[in-house]
């Protein structure tokens, strides 16, 4: 999942974070999926339509929202998966600490290309291990 934060034009980071939280709150409060226009109405406050579209698509890229086609626009709804959100938030916190590898005990760590090669050989022929 690509993080678009650095590529979105025009919105300073901190303001964007607050707007994202506000947009998410609006969507969670409403019972159904909303289009950017509907979110804009509920957010008010002189925001531009394009800003709202950017925020919603960013939240979607982060995996926090799902979207469906609704006429010409998309409509957005919060991802139903609470555990997924909680896990994502946790990983986000730990990543900020830059110490995730040592706090969590992961089943497998990342592989270098050489390691990958080694493992494929091992899987193909278990006796060739080491």
């Amino acid at each position: 999942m690509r993080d678009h934060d650095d590529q979105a034009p025009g919105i300073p980071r901190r303001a964007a974070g607050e707007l994202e939280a506000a947009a998410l709150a609006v969507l969670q409060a409403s019972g159904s999926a909303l289009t950017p226009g509907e979110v804009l109405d509920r957010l008010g406050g002189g925001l531009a339509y394009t800003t709202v579209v950017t925020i919603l698509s960013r939240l979607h890229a982060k995996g926090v929202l799902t979207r469906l086609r609704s006429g010409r626009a998309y409509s957005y709804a919060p991802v139903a998966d609470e555990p997924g959100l909680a896990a994502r938030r946790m990983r986000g916190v730990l990543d900020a600490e830059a110490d995730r590898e040592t706090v969590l005990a992961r089943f497998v760590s990342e592989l270098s290309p050489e390691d990958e090669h080694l493992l494929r050989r091992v899987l193909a022929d278990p006796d060739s291990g080491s």
Partner: protein
Amino acid sequence: MDVFVWLPLVISAIAALAARPLADRLPPRTATWLLAASAVVLAGASCGVLGLLALAAAMRIPFVDAAAGMSIRAVNSRDPASVPLGILAGALLAAAAIAAVRAAWLRTTALVAAHQHSRRLPMASLLTSAAEAVVVQDDGVDAYTVPGWPSRIVVTSGMLAALAPDERAVLLAHERAHAGSYHYLFTAVARLAAAANPLLSPLATAIGYSVERWADERAAAAAGSRPLVARAIAKAALAATVAPALRAQSAVLLGALPRPSTARGPGLVPRRVAALLGPPPKLRIVPLVLAVALVAIAGLSAFDAARDLHAMIELAQSAA
């Protein structure tokens, strides 16, 4: 204080070189306990002798002598320790203390944050026994244990999809071994020791490996087959390369995090797989006894140096 005051530091350097061979040759549980205990003793001993050197240098300052009621002539005549060395030792000790406190603080806050978030994960048992494991919807392949009371095991749907049923059981047994045996304490203690004495970082790395091996062997005992665990690990790692966990994904895609290189030989996962495909590790008494003896010597040297300094202070005080 004599030349033996340097022993803890020298032995720390030896331990750094011996850490990985020991982790490879000894059974994982033995290796973990040995390395963790060694790290604690060596960190304590090396910080101790640094403190002693600094103290010995401080004793050459007339002001200190007067305040402590010691005769400076008695001090100068007996103690060969030099002042510049003592100042260096004091500076190193201060740096070590700061590093250790900082490491402990960072680790604690990260743990607390992880625990608070993990409490919001629903408790769901994947198997009939109480597992405290949670499945999250994520195509990325990842599984990990969040340490705490209680620990939480998190597995992505992507990981489950990548493994066969018997391999999933292996995964859970491995994570439960982490959760149940407080493996986290060993790695945390080792990292703290390494913060206080950077010479000990290879021990912390080696413990990270032996703790994984420990969980692997426990999983193998539960599953009844070591090759099965090897296959499960290999499959999971290869699947994760294709569909990496969230953080790895964005970081690698942004080019911020290069894939690990094998500059120092095969990484953790191939070593674990190879170890499981090889014969079960046997307890080798000689390396174990040697290691324990060296660490004991380091501890005793520090203790001896402290006693020497204490005797010298008493002597100087009585001569004043």
